[in-house]
Each structure stands twice: as C-alpha cells, then as structure tokens.
C-alpha cells in the first residue's frame, strides 16, 4: 500500500498508456508527462504568487490582497484574466520579431530544466547521464532571452536593465556551477538520480543529505545566494527594481507577454530550488528514517515550497544590493569560497570516516569565512565617497 501511494503517478501513467498500441506507448508516456509538468508548475506558480503577496504583505505589516476571494485566494485567477485580456502594446520602433521571441525563449528554456529533476522515486522525465550539465545549459539560455528582451524594446531603461541583469547572471553562474561541482565530486556522477540515491541512506534516524556535512552546508549557502541572483530575486533585483529602472528589461511588455516573463521568473525559481533540493537536501528522501512511509513526491514538493517560502522571506527582509556591491560580492567573496569548498570536499573524501574530517573541514571553512569577511568589510578611510562614472 505504501509503495502504491509512493508510485501512484508512475502506475497511473502505465495504466493510461496501456490503452494504446505498443509502438505508441513510449511517445504517449512522454507527452503525458510533459503535459503534466506544463500544467502543474504554472498552478504552483499561481500558488506561489499568492503566497508571496500575502506573505510579503504580512512581513511589511499590511494585509496582502484580500478583496477577490476569502483571504484573497482567488487573486491569481483575477491576475490571469487581467493579463490575458490586456492590450498587447509593442512600441513602434521596437524590433517586432525579437520582441516577440524573447518571452518565448525564456519560458521554453525554463521548462526544459524540469526534464532532468527527479520529482519522486522513479519520477524523472529523462534519466540522463549528464543531467546536471543539461540543466545548466538550459539556464544559460535564459540569459540570452533577457538580453533579447532588453535590446529589442529600444528603450534606454530596458537596455540598461538587461545589461545589468545579464552581467549579474553571468557573474553568479560561476559560483552556481562551482558549488554544484563539489556535490558531483563526492557523488562521482553528473546524473541527478544517482545524486539523490547517494543521499538516500540513514545512520540511526539521521539522513545522509549533503547539507549536513560541512562542505555541503557551505555549498548550500553559496548555492542559495547564487540562485537568488540568477533568478533576479531580492536582494539581487536591481535589474528589475521598480524604483530603479521602471521595470528593467520587461518595461515594454504588457499583457500576456509580461505574464510570460513573470511566469518564467517564478518557474525558474521552482526549477532551481528543485535542483537545489536534489543536490543538497536529498531530493525526494525523507528527513528521518521513521518517516519513509510518506510518499517521496510529497517530500520533494514540500522541500520546494519551503525553498520558495525562504525566497519570499529573504525578499521581505533584506534591502537591495547595489550593482557594484553585487558584483564585488560575487567575484571577491563567493567565488573564492566556492573554490575553497571544492578543496574542503576533496579533503572530506580523502580523510576517511571519523571525527577528524568533521573538525578539520568545519574549521577550515569557518576560519576562512571569518577572515575574508573581516578583510572585505574593513573600511580604511571614511572620507568623501568617490564615484566612477561611465566614460
């Protein structure tokens, strides 16, 4: 019974494709899975938008939307209807083809990332040997669409926002990849299903998730910072901050295209938190060994929703980073720490089991973190601020 609940979607898929002739079954199975993903994640997006507006409102000491339904739960439907029926305004001098293609490329690239994330036991769409590399290749394509959106709008604010967004996404892509490489080093495979399987064992009641190791914890923190920057979320949302740049690269988009950008951003958040839970939080495995009777997909989606709640929480709490602070942070702080994390992960592997590796690895990471923080945060002189202007 427990296994049936755990594999209920797989069994449902086999039952549905059982009605078709044998040569059609594989293709039909894939099409059904893709249709489910394309329907499920926008539904979760609606839930996340509502959660964000209510949660952010409460953190800012106000109610969120509360007119549309009881406690405002029908607000996403109202937003959807509004964005579908709004007039689609394209500026006269804008590049029509590229302007149209930019949200399309974004949404396609973002949804492709879900093909390799294991959402439960045996519930991965394509079990690729180089799954992690495929995911990062798709997220590299989203940067191109951001640039296309900003450039095709023929608007100074859009172009500036797009340049900033692309610079930020490229800068934080390196720590993102490096913090995942530590996981790949320890697991020995780029395949996401193997990474989850490596974390699916327990000592006593505690799981072997990578976040509970020193290098895994540091890697997870750096991965979280890099994902917040990759998806242009606060506190890294200078490219789309309302008070900075009108709306950045999606200034000139109205109606459904803006809804597509919005959808693309939130679904990218889901996708990248899905990857983060797979790499560091054990994917679909249960947090304690006595909880393995709960179906695996419930754990996966709970962890994703928890990550989304943390994203919203961070947005409501921290102020926005300036562009040069953002870039300094990426190149001078996070990147050296990810390189050190690789070294610490190798040390962890080769010191063997025992208490030494816990002590040494934690000590190295803590000392270097504190030292770098003290070095970077010191101020030599409190004189008048010097500005660098563009030539």
């Amino acid at each position, binding site marked *: 019974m427990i296994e049936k609940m755990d594999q209920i979607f797989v069994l449902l898929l086999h039952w549905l494709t059982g009605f078709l002739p044998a040569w059609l079954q594989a293709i039909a199975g894939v099409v059904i899975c893709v249709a489910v993903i394309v329907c499920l994640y926008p539904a979760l997006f609606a839930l996340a938008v509502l959660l964000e507006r209510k949660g952010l409102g409460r953190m800012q000491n106000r109610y969120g939307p509360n007119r549309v339904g009881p406690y405002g739960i029908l607000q996403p439907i109202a937003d959807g209807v509004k964005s579908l029926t709004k007039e689609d305004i394209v500026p006269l001098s804008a590049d029509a083809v590229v302007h149209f293609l930019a949200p399309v490329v974004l949404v396609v690239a973002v949804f492709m990332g879900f093909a390799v994330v294991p959402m439960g036991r045996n519930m991965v769409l394509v079990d*690729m040997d180089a799954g992690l590399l495929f995911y990062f290749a*798709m997220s590299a394509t989203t940067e*191109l669409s951001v640039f296309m959106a900003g450039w095709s709008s023929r608007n100074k604010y859009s172009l500036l926002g797009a340049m900033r967004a692309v610079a930020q996404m490229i800068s934080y892509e390196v720590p993102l990849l490096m913090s995942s490489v530590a996981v790949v080093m320890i697991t020995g495979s780029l395949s996401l299903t193997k990474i989850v399987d490596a974390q699916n064992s327990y000592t006593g009641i505690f799981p072997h998730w990578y976040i509970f190791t020193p290098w895994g914890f540091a890697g997870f923190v750096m991965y979280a910072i890099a994902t917040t920057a990759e998806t242009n979320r606060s506190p890294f949302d200078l490219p789309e901050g309302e008070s900075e740049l009108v709306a950045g690269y999606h200034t000139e988009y109205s109606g459904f295209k803006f809804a597509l950008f919005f959808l693309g951003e939130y679904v990218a958040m889901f996708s990248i938190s899905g990857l983060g839970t797979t790499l560091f939080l054990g994917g679909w495995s249960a947090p304690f060994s006595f909880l393995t009777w709960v179906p695996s997909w419930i754990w996966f989606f709970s962890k994703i929703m928890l990550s989304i709640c943390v994203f919203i929480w961070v947005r409501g709490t921290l102020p926005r980073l300036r562009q040069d602070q953002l870039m300094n942070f990426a190149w001078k702080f996070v990147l050296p720490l990810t390189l050190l994390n690789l070294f610490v992960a190798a040390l962890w592997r080769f010191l063997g089991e025992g208490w030494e590796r816990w002590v040494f690895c934690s000590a190295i990471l803590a000392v270097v973190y504190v030292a770098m923080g003290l070095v970077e945060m010191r101020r030599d002189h409190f004189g008048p601020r010097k500005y660098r202007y563009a030539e």
Partner: protein
Amino acid sequence: MTVVFYILAAMTVAGGMAAMLLKNTVHCALAVTVAFAGLAFLFLDLDAQFAGFAQILVYVGAVAILVVFAILLTRGSETPKDGVASKHWLAGLVIAAGVFAVMGWAILQSAAVLPHEMPVPAVTVLDIGNALVTRYVLPLEIVALLLTAAMLGAVIVALHEKEAAQ
C-alpha cells in the same frame, strides 16, 4: 542520414545563411546562435551528450552573449546603408568553394578508409574525465594557462580605464 539529421542540418545552415544575409548586426548574432544550437543538437543526435551540452553551455550561453555585447558596445549596431553584399563577392565565392572542396575531399577520403559497420563508441562523462587527467593532461593544463592569461588580460584592460579616469 535520417530525417532528424536533415532537419537539424537545415536549421544550422539556415542560421549560418541568415547570419550572413541579415542587415541588422544583432539579428545576425542571434542567427549565429541558432546555428550554434543546431550544432549542439547534431552532437546530441550522435550520442555525444557531454559535447552537446557543453556546446550549449559555452556557445549559446557565453559566446553568443559575448558577441552581442561586443556588437552593442562598439559602433557595429548601425545597419549598413548599401546592403550587406560586398563588391568582391565573386572572389569570396571562389575561395569559399575551394575551401569546401578541400574539406569535403578530406572527409570523404577518411570515410572510405574507416571500416564499415563500426560500433558507435559509448563515451560517458566518466571516460572523458579519465582521459582528461591521464592521457590529455598536458592539453588540459595548457588550456587552463590560456584561460588564466585571458582573464588576467581582461582585468588589466579594465584596470587601465580606471587609472585613466583618475
């Protein structure tokens, strides 16, 4: 020669031709990105997973953005008034045909030398990694040195501007 190969080849060639024929330089850059993506899918069609995904990650994700930035930050974004065909198109055509003939002859010669019905080698990422650190470690280190030199050069070029401003 399957249908998939023909579709992907058509996409790659169309991207390349569009990159040549379009007037707006940023459109040309986006068309060459389509050609890169077509090449990546051709790699995937040949079961070279690592090469295909690395092609997307590096070419579409980084090189395309680099090309676009280079076009935007220089004056290349002005569309040429006289059209894109140059005056010496006949010489260009002859040279391109000559290069194509030599490359085609070389590839067809080598295909005749290889034995027929050779099994497709299944190369995993593990094999590539092993080869990189055992047999090809010298090229790996040289490429690393080259990348470090490029990064230092970029930093020095950017630094020079700051000194000039002060």
